[in-house]
């Protein structure tokens, strides 16, 4: 059985700028792969390759064993890769259930008299959110009135419901408070337990470590390595994230200043 997604020596150039090179990692069903890196480390490029926004020009991406190259976000989506972006792709003035089904509303009747099955949509939205352990007061509520964590959870539940095999989360906790981050981490676990492969992109090792099964650290467009959790103690991860030797240097400079 091959992995859900495998990346082997994947690289990407924008003109003469090497945005990403030599990235190797894998995502298994029912596991969380964390991609860590500071600003400018290449996380966005990594996501965009998998989401079909950009195409890699080195190495190979394999989806369930066969090599793929996504030419558009739709292609990626229809292959079962759902990306939850930081800005969440939600319409604040619209209700939770409408956002949940946006673009794929269940309908009744025959064209041209085809209408949205509102009752069914509300029922499914409520039920799917509940399955993820998300407690929404009322699916008629506009998304704009939800908190950041709640919005994130709706976005995750939506991706899970629409048959995603792989869920890519772009910095889901970066704009959230402590408790909210905890809630989102819970949803990551919930998605994992439902058999999805999760790619969790973050710059916070303390968020990554408790939920991750596999860690890939990016720095300046290069992979610093791809580790299973057993190979990598927490402190080691934190240190790598912080940039090890570079940070020594920085600390030194700051102390002597």
């Amino acid at each position, binding site marked *: 059985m091959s992995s859900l997604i495998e990346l082997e020596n994947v690289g990407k150039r924008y003109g003469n700028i090497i945005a990403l090179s030599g990235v190797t990692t894998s995502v298994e069903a029912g596991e969380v792969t964390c991609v860590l890196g500071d600003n400018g480390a290449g996380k966005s490029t990594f996501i965009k390759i998998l989401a079909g926004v950009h195409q890699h020009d080195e190495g190979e991406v394999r989806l369930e064993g066969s090599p793929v190259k996504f030419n558009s*976000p*739709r292609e990626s*989506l229809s292959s079962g890769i759902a990306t939850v*972006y930081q*800005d*969440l*792709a*939600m*319409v*604040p*003035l*619209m209700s939770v259930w*409408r956002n949940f089904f*946006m*673009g*794929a*509303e269940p*309908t009744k009747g025959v064209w041209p008299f*085809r*209408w*949205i099955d*509102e009752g069914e949509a509300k029922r499914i939205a409520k039920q799917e959110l*509940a*399955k993820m*352990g*998300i*407690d*929404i*007061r*009322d699916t*008629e*509520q*506009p998304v*704009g*009135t939800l908190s950041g964590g709640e919005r994130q959870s709706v976005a995750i539940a939506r991706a899970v419901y629409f048959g995603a095999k792989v869920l890519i989360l772009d910095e889901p906790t970066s704009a959230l*408070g*402590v*408790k909210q*981050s*905890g*809630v989102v*981490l*819970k949803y990551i*676990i919930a998605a994992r337990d439902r058999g999805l492969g999760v790619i969790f992109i973050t710059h*916070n090792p*303390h*968020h990554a*470590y*408790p939920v991750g099964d596999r860690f890939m650290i990016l720095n300046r467009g290069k992979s610093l390595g791809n580790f299973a959790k057993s190979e990598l103690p927490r*402190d080691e991860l*934190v*240190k790598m994230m*912080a940039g*090890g*030797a570079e*940070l*020594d240097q920085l*600390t*030194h400079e700051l*102390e002597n200043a």
Partner: protein
Amino acid sequence: MTANDAGETIVSGDDVNNGLSFTEEGMDDIEEVVPAAEASGDERLAYQGLGQRLLLRPEIVGVLFAVFLYLFFWGATRPFGNAGGLATVLDVSATLGIMAVAVGALMIGGEFDLSAGAMTGAMGIIIILLVKETGELGGAGLNYWIALPLSLVIALGIGWLNANMVERTALPSFIVTLATFFVLRGLKLAGSKITVDQIQVGRADEGAGFEFWRKIMGSVWIRGDHPWESRDLVYTVATTIGGVLLAGAVCLFAFRRREKLNPAGVPVLLAGLVGIGVGAWLTHSLDGSDWIPMVVIAVSGVVAAFGLGLWRLAPLSALAPKLPTGVLAPLAGSLALCGAAIGSALAFDADNEEDLFFPVTEQGLRGLLFIVFAALAAGLATMAVSRARATSPGTRALATMVVGLTIFGMALFVQSQSESPKFRTQLFAILSLAALAALVWSVMVSRFEARSAPDRDADRTARIVAGLGLAAVLIGVAVRVLFSVEAEIAAEDPSRLAKFSIRVVWFVGFTLLMSWVLRSTKFGSWTYAVGGNKQAARQIGVPAARVKTQLFMLVAFAAWLVGMLLAFRLNTIQAGTGNFEEFEYIIAAVVGGTLLTGGYGSAQGAATGALLMAMAQQGISFAGWNTDWRFFFLGIILLVAVYANGAVRRRAEAIR
């Protein structure tokens, strides 16, 4: 310093930022953050009563404004309130409304179309040029069966072009369609000069098939041509049934359901309904101002409401009436203002029609003062009742009763004062009905428990009942205004000449269709989505460009429809027809609750906005004021409505 220490430094730094670093043990604490899904969580939502829920609808400002304007002009002018005035207002609102609904949908989708107004005239000119035969370059001489679809294709093409230019250039649609507007404006003027050497293009009736299509696009229903002797009977029956159903719906909305239905209430309810029926029949057969049917209706109304309560609603345990100053003061103020209204009516001469100061005659000033005092009194009464509501059911019943009696007193005064049948019978009847409603309400709140928790089943029943009631009332009113009786024709009553144009049917149909489309179809949902957050909608798989293209084509379709309605009605289209009307469409949509920035609004709101503007426009001319003031009033209406809409929307978002 070792590398390890450096790592520690960062950990503590992170702790400062995040307050907490998650560990495996930490995850267990989070368990409590997420409550069990079984607790459906509705207890966190405060219950909103019917009034509150209605106040959060996007079109509420437009509706209230329209009711206010209608009442105002109904009092201030003669034609308002009779069939002729209504026909004119509807006629003006129809073409404006069709466009406002389409432009409103486009605005919900986040775009503008400034070429919409010019396009209506352009379509009228195009259809005439397509069917015209005379003259050297006079026209293409097609028949309507070919010309109509062809002109529609041209219209949709213009819409498609607008959309594509907006998409391709990524410029604001405001600018792109402004360009289209000028192009169309030039084409209309130059085109009509080149083809017919005039600044108008005429004779739509030269095309083959004109008679057939005029029935669909341009026919007119003249009231006097349709006598129907049972008209008033149908009107009375329909409005009575409608009124009763609406009142019942309000009770179902407002009161808590009984745990178990009590069949003993059914005969009481039926007895009350029979009584109301008898009362209505008496009104119909006796003179409208006779007091016997009124008493019968009032008593039966109370009985019926009580029966309904006995059958379905939960009884109240404690009344606890008390009168705190918070309730007493506005109540007393309201009574005093009623006195002031009566006083001002007695102080001025009702028959003096000379100008006191522009634009008011003494007669006008009298009416104005009366209305202002009465409106203030109504405001204070509302305040008293809403404060009483917060105090206790007993207080609420008492306050409502006082208000009801006051209204009835005013009704009697109005009846005793005026000679015109409009005030003598119509206003008297309306005020008496309001007083009756207050009376019934006061009995209901003193006997049954107000609802304090959401009840979806009761809401659904109430909504169906209210829908049926509204339909019955509308049917009744429609029958009343559409048909005449022999007596009116014989007496040469001016209202027999009222002309209802078929464009009103198009307006209503288009509004209902668009209301459904926006609410219940994918296209509608996507319209709100691309207007609310285009980027997000696109990311998640909404074909944003296609939706916008369809919206521009929808506006073009509406412009085509209006162009046809104009051509078949007027037979001649001026080169300038429709120019600059695009702003009126936008105003109508905005007054009706559409957000200028997109993502919020409704079709029925835009239609209400159009109706309101037509009322203002016609009201000013009916009142004999200088019609140059029309734009001045439109500006004021726009300003007030935008402000009020903003307040309503902010409240809606804060509350939900």
